[in-house]
């Protein structure tokens, strides 16, 4: 078991944390600015509800990446946090009529609360066992939501979630303006993730991912760190789930079903793990593809998305972002030699 684990983490390490791949601060600031521009411009080019889906799934993928790419934990039950927050957000918004950002924050907090016992039990195991424990919890929540029909609406879902926003009507009715009202929550989630991985806490996570035994020998309480990052990740997934449910105006069992957990892992791997950038990129690809295929009149959507996934995994093992970053690094190292001579 432990031999297998080190082997898998080895691959991930190679992809993400080789020292010479760190970009200089100017480039990073430039990239960040560009990303922000793309995100801000998105609803001008893409149908606004679809744009909202992209950023929500992107943030959801970031929450997975935090665990998978930076801590080496594969959660196969993240739909539990995304879905719970979707329902809780919806219930708060419907019953109290509070502005939607408050409802979403409430949803995220509840997602974090249920992540505490889940994380507490799950982090005692690693690898496939960790994945199975998280999956089991997610299934449990799925069945609870299915049975608690007075609260969740069961099969029919929780319908008619309002987009209350301090009485500003354009935001409440037009998805174009709603996008900009909800975007800060997404950016908040992304910022928390970035802050987490680039702090000393994040360094400890990397140490745990690469060699848990050594991290423990150095005096770090590995389990506690894992629980903490698990809860943070659940909170980010909760933010994303809340935005998603308010944007659609409903929460359904689809949000809790295990395929949703699978889809977000797929998105993360597609985009490239251990990068944070990869998630949103993967989300853009998957959501746009689903959206396009849905009105293309083509009858085998699963075949297309499946083959693309297989192709990416076989040909670009580091995901889209990982591959692009690699190419850039190669160009860079080619350009470096003459550059030094000049200087």
């Amino acid at each position, binding site marked *: 078991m432990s031999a297998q684990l080190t082997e898998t983490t080895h691959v991930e390490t190679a992809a993400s944390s080789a020292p010479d791949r760190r970009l200089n601060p100017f480039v990073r600031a430039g990239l960040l600015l560009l990303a922000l521009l793309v995100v801000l*411009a998105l609803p*001008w080019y893409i149908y606004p509800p679809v744009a909202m889906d992209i950023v929500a799934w992107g943030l959801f993928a970031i929450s997975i990446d935090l665990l998978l790419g930076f801590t080496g934990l594969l959660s196969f039950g993240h739909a539990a946090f995304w879905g719970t927050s979707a329902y809780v957000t919806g219930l708060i918004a419907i019953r109290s009529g509070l502005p939607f950002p408050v409802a979403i924050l409430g949803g995220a907090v509840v997602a974090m609360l249920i992540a505490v016992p889940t994380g507490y039990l799950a982090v005692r195991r690693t690898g496939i066992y960790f994945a199975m424990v998280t999956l089991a919890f997610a299934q449990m929540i799925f069945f609870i939501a299915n049975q608690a029909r007075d609260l969740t609406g069961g099969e*029919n879902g929780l*319908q008619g979630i309002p987009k209350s926003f301090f009485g500003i009507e354009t935001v409440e009715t037009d998805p174009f303006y709603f996008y900009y009202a909800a975007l800060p929550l997404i950016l908040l989630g992304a910022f928390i993730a970035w802050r987490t991985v680039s702090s000393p806490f994040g360094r400890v996570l990397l140490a745990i991912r690469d060699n848990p035994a050594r991290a423990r020998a150095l005096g770090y309480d590995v389990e506690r760190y894992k629980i903490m990052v698990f809860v943070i990740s659940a909170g980010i997934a909760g933010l994303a789930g809340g935005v998603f449910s308010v944007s659609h*105006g409903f929460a359904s069992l*689809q949000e809790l079903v295990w395929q949703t957990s699978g889809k977000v892992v797929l998105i993360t791997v597609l985009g490239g793990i251990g990068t944070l950038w990869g998630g949103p990129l993967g989300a853009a690809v998957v959501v746009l593809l689903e959206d396009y295929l849905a009105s293309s009149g083509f*009858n085998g959507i699963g075949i297309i998305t499946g083959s693309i996934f297989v192709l990416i995994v076989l040909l670009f093992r580091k995901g889209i972002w990982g591959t692009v970053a690699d190419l850039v690094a190669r*160009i860079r190292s080619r350009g470096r030699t003459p550059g030094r001579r000049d200087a």
Partner: protein
Amino acid sequence: MRHTRMISLAAMVAGSGLVLTACGSSAGGGPAAASGKISDDKIVLAVLNDQSGVYKDLSGPNSVEAVKMAVEDWKAKHKDDAVSKNIEVVTADHQNKPDIANTKAQELYDRQKADIILDVPTSSAALAVATQAKTKKKVYINIGAGTTALTGAQCNKYTFHWAYDTYMLAKGTGGTLTKDGGKKWNVVYPDYAFGQDMTKSFEGQITAAGGAIGQKVPTPFPNDNFATYITKAAADKPDVIGTMHAGGDLINFVKQYNQAGISDQIKLAVGLMFITDIHSLGAEQFKGVTFTEAWYWNFDEQNRAWADKFQAKTKTRPSFAHAANYSAAFNYLEAVQEAGSDTGDDVVAKLEGKKINDFFLRNGEVRAADHRVIHDAYLAEVKPASEVKEEWDYEKIVATIPAAEAFKPVAESGCSM
């Protein structure tokens, strides 16, 4: 710094590439409003259903064909006095996922300028689209979903429910069979919302007709092995065993019911079944099974005539959902013609309370109070293979449930618009 610039350049190119692709695939946001008699000078009918999954055969692409047939026939009927000659049919695949249905419904109304959305199976998706219809003030006629919530607690001004619902199924099968002497029932149902709801509706109808359910046997969902549940349900020799399973589970259930060797003594009634289920398993497996149909293609000459036209186009016989899509699309266009406008409110005003008699809706009426479209329903029995004279000739209609009785009375609907 040269490499730095190169990287920024690469990133720029990648970024603008992304933006360009986005540009190509879709138009941008921002609100858009249209006015005039016929918005955008065209009438757009959108079919939103399952084009690739479990409901593909039941409605799917052939429902789109049915709607196209309706448009052609309507054009042929009105020729020059048609309110618009420019009629489009668009379609989208919701993959039975409510979130996709929701986004697609918005897109269809906003971007593709759809004036009406048709079909939408799967209850969570159906209800999500109803909410969109309400916000956009555009017409929505549901055909594929069974939930009574569409015309009950979650009804709205722009939503109509055309073909069937769970109440109709319970009334038809539970009520009629009990009246005909099947007083003692046992029900086997999958233990989730749909199964529980159906069992409750059946119990209401059976009790009202003077019968009783002895045992209610829940099974896991989904499930493959029903042998123990069948034995349990058959143990006290009821007159009828009712099953509320659907799709793949139903097919397994029926197979094992036949193997149990009790099909000669105890009648099997199915809560929800479509002609496509019989077609996939063969009539022999289902012989003697009773269920409620909203419409059957080989019921009379009128139905058959339409089914022949449908077959000429699609090489298959229609399910009731196909016929209902045609009927809904045709009558929608009639309402637009009468109103002289395709604005949601104008069309709704013309549809409300309208009495319709076409090949699909017999003694039909669009109830104004809850937008439930009522019509005659049928109790059907599956023929044994020996009596099947041609392909798809699987059903014998044993009773007609009059429109006024087949659906939930307005007083019980719980709808307030």
